[in-house]
């Protein structure tokens, strides 16, 4: 168990695993996302209330889902950084924060464009939208804080603390549609119940969520590998690995 834990923290071990998994993640992600999006755009039935504008859901929900789960993953990594000082955890936080920022922006943007024909407005300051905007600022704050501190170890600790403080926002986002009156519709997927949509709508949605998850995995691998290269370029294993590569 502990040996596994140590291995997991080793950048060299991760580098090898990531290289092996990346083509699969990319292929699976591209296929699933394309299938979900094409199905959702062209084949899923029209919503009886919202008409065709609801087709935005096939990218809105995946990006919003990922935006939150990336933050939760970052929070776990932040705990590992603070408690065990594992290098790889900090590499993860640093590498995926920009991805989370872009996904959060995309979910806000697609939500606003969806809101215009559905609610008649681009933006309302209600709980769901505002807490999502705070998530965007948390990502931005983590990136800015990391860049502002030159020393790698102090930056890692400061960012980890910020990420952990921001975790309080996640349940607020999650339950905002139930606790407060809002224009936002309740969640499509719940763990305990069947989706409230017909299968021709939620199956493509599930496909695009899974696809975007895989693409996130690919992005995390590439970006973490880059970060590891930059940090460990003086070590022997990086030197041997790069010199052995073709081209």
């Amino acid at each position, binding site marked *: 168990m502990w040996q596994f834990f140590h291995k997991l923290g080793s950048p060299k071990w991760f580098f090898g695993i990531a290289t092996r998994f990346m083509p699969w993640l990319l292929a699976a992600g591209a296929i699933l996302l394309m299938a979900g*999006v094409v199905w959702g*755009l*062209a*084949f*899923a*039935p*029209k919503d009886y209330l919202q*008409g*065709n*504008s609801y*087709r*935005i859901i096939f*990218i*809105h929900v995946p*990006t919003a889902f990922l935006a939150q789960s990336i933050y939760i993953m970052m929070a776990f990594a932040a705990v590992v950084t603070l408690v065990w000082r594992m290098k790889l955890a900090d590499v993860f936080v640093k590498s995926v924060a*920009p*991805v989370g920022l*872009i996904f959060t*922006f*995309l979910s806000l*943007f*697609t939500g606003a*464009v*969806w809101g*215009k*024909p559905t609610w008649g407005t681009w933006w309302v300051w209600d709980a769901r939208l505002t807490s999502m905007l705070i998530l965007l600022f948390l990502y931005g704050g983590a990136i800015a804080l990391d860049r502002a501190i030159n020393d790698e170890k102090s930056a890692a600790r400061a960012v980890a603390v910020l990420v952990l403080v921001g975790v309080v926002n996640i349940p607020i986002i999650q339950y905002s549609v139930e606790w407060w009156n809002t224009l936002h519709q309740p969640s499509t997927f719940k763990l305990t119940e069947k989706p409230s949509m017909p299968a021709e709508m939620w199956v493509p949605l599930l496909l695009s969520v899974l696809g975007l998850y895989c*693409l996130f995995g*690919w*992005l995390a691998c*590439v*970006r973490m*590998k*880059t970060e590891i*290269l*930059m940090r460990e*370029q003086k070590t022997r294993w*990086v*030197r041997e690995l*790069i*010199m052995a*590569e073709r081209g």
Partner: protein
Amino acid sequence: MAFESFSAFIAMEGHGPYVWTCYAVFAVLLIGLMVQSYRHHRAVTSACKRRYQQQKSTVGNRPKPAATFTRVEVSQD
């Protein structure tokens, strides 16, 4: 197929501009992020490689000094 013709698919009964704007921005940002991440990785890899090769050649071809000089302190008194 939920639409009768291709033009109906594009128009989406008036919701076309909203739907297609979302999908366009999504595609541009996602693909842009993936391409940028991949290119950055390539750039860092080749920069490392160049540096290693440079180090290797400077270590291997450094000319040996033809003679060594030692300063000798000679007392003048």
